[in-house]
Every structure is written in structure tokens, then in C-alpha cells.
């Protein structure tokens, strides 16, 4: 089951996702990137139906870019989150997407923020959040150890604690995780936590 979780620290936000691509009982690959970089200062980690996940996050990414082209300025994180919620809400009673989203961003005026949007388009602005079976473990770990304004070292340490819990306690635990960070310097990959290494392949 897909594990995505995230938290807000002092001047940054982290999103962590597992990197397994699963089809029924088959593990296709262990380096699937589920955290899309929407623009220079936004990350969208998504979990759910694989096709919906890829299609919906790409759709949001292209619309965020379109707004920037049309208007000359980028969307704020809150605006992007509300746009995403709007798209999910409109589709909900027509042809719903089964995608859960954690949207993290950094704005110059308001600093880092994290938005939780579940598959029926419930939007919450949060400090920490998680989806999937892994959430049973990561939410409890974060409830215990999280505090406001964590430094990067503390936050990555907490993320590692969550990953250790997921690996040791979830029956079909994903082997690999990717950690992405967004701060004033932008959105980028921070680290991988791998226990299985796939053979490297050229990108599609």
C-alpha cells in the first residue's frame, strides 16, 4: 500500500513517499517517483490509483504552469491547493479521481505550508499529514515527536523514524522511499532511503 507523508519545519516542508509501482501482487519497479514538482516552489505527493495519480498530478502541474504563463506570476501554495480541490470536487460526482494529495509549498510572504487533500476533495491546511496504511505508523510517530519549527536535521530524523516503523511493522512494506524538500531555495529531491536497488534504466 502506498505510503505518503509530510511535515512542515522551520522554513521548509518535507514530503516523503514510497517508490514502489505495484500491480495486484506484482512489484513492477521500486524507483517510481510519486512526488511531482509543480513549479519552482511546490511539491505534490500523491497516492492512489496509479493511472489517476499520474494523470491528475500532471494535469495540475500543467495548469499551474499555464497560470504562470498567462499572468506572469506564480500561484501561491494556497491558491494551487484550492485549485486542486476545486478540480477534484467538480469531478467527484461525475468521474471521480481516486488520488490522495499532499501539497507542500514555500511562499515568500507566508513561509512553508502543507495542504492535505483527500480523494473526495476534503482540504485541510496542516503541519503534518499522512496517507495509506503507513499513516497508522507515521502519524503516531509524528504525534509523539513533532513540534513546531523543527530544524532540517530533526525533521529528517523524524522521517527516518517513521520509515523504520513502516518497514518493521507493515506487512507488505515498501522497500524504498524518496524524500523531497521545498524551502526558499526551491523544490528539490533531498534524499532516497533504499533497501533494494533497481538496475538503472534510461528515462521514457
Amino acid at each position, binding site marked *: 500500500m502506498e505510503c505518503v507523508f509530510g511535515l512542515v519545519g522551520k522554513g521548509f516542508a518535507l514530503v516523503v513517499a514510497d517508490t514502489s509501482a505495484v500491480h495486484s501482487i506484482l512489484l513492477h519497479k521500486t524507483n517510481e517517483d510519486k512526488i511531482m514538482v509543480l513549479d519552482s516552489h511546490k511539491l505534490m505527493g500523491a497516492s492512489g490509483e496509479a493511472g489517476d495519480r499520474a494523470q491528475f498530478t500532471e494535469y495540475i502541474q500543467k495548469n499551474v504552469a499555464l497560470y504562470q504563463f498567462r499572468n506572469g506570476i506564480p500561484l501561491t501554495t494556497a491558491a494551487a491547493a484550492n485549485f486542486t480541490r476545486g478540480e477534484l470536487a467538480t469531478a467527484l460526482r461525475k468521474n471521480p479521481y481516486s488520488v490522495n494529495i499532499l501539497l507542500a509549498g514555500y511562499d515568500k510572504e507566508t513561509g512553508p505550508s502543507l495542504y492535505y487533500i483527500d480523494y473526495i476533495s476534503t*482540504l485541510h491546511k*496542516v503541519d503534518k499529514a499522512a496517507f495509506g496504511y503507513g*499513516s497508522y505508523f507515521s502519524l503516531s510517530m509524528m504525534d509523539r515527536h513533532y513540534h513546531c519549527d523543527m530544524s532540517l536535521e530533526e525533521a529528517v530524523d523524524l522521517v527516518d523514524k517513521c520509515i523504520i516503523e513502516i518497514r518493521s511493522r507493515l506487512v507488505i512494506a515498501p522497500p524504498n522511499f524518496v524524500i523531497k524538500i521545498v524551502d526558499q531555495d526551491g523544490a528539490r529531491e533531498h534524499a532516497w532511503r533504499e533497501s533494494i536497488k533497481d538496475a538503472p534504466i534510461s528515462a521514457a
Partner: protein
Amino acid sequence: MFISLSTMEALWWPWSERIASPSPVTAASAFSFRPSPLISREFTRSTKRSSSALSGLATDAQTLYQRLVFRHKLYQLREERNMKPETFASLVSAILYEKRFGPYFCQPVIAGLGDDNKPFICTMDSIGAKELAKDFVVAGTASESLYGACEAMFKPDMEAEELFETISQALLSSVDRDCLSGWGGHVYVV
């Protein structure tokens, strides 16, 4: 499935009234969220004199909240005045009944002061059936408990402080016995 569940009540009183609304708890898969963001999202202060709160499915509460704010602002632009709470209640009822065969899973509670500061409270089911009351209205997952608590504690013609105490005690005692709501409450005075 995520459901934001909340419990609300509005007590009636000669000169002003209160909507008390506990911080909702998102149930299912044992997730909970901090109170304040959910409250501000579910609660519309549509005019200076009327407010509404929405219990039920969080996504529909958020969508309905946005639609109601839009309709009320449009009304203000056209009529250059605020909507009376009776009118607002009829608007909410109409919007809910529009979706009769695919409803919003929300139960609103509306409270406000109409003409001559006359207090007005009402609640609705998810397809807009209005229930007006003289004394109190309740909605949410702990509504049965709230009916009991309010019936026991309500007295007509209470003053502001007493009403505040009454509504808070009724709310807290009801949600303390409901696993799906809690983490405190907000009392709004109109």
C-alpha cells in the same frame, strides 16, 4: 473514507444568540485534525447578523460553504444590503433541494438576528427541509445527545452570560459521549 463530523447547536434568546460548534474531528482510519482550520472553513459569518454552520461530510461542507459565500456576496452587490437570516435559510434550503437526487451530505444550522433584532434559528436535513424552532436547534453526530442536553438545560429569556454557559455545558456534555466529535468547542455570539 474521510468524514468531518461535527456537532452544532444554536440556542435562542431574546436579544442575541449563540451558535456553539465544537471543533470537528475527522473520523475514519483514526485521523484527527486540529480544530481551528476546520471550524473557520465550516462556519460562515455571512453577515454581521447571521451565521451558519455545516455539519456532515467535510468535502460537501467546504463546497457548500464556498457556494453560500458566493451567493451571499452576489446578493449584497445587487441589493446593497445584508440578507436577513430567514432569507438566507430559504436560500440554503433551495440550494440543497437542487441536489435532491444527488445531495450534499451536510446538515446546516443557521442563526441570526432578523428585523428589529428578532432572533432566528433553524436547522435543515441534507435535502433542505427547514426546521424552525423557538428554543434550540441541533445537528451533527451527537444530535440525539444534544437534544437531551438542551431540553434539560434550556430556559427561556436567559441573559448573555447564562446562555453562554448553558450552551457550552450542553455541547461539551454531549460531545464527551460521542466518539466522532470533540476536542472542545467554539461559541459564536450573534
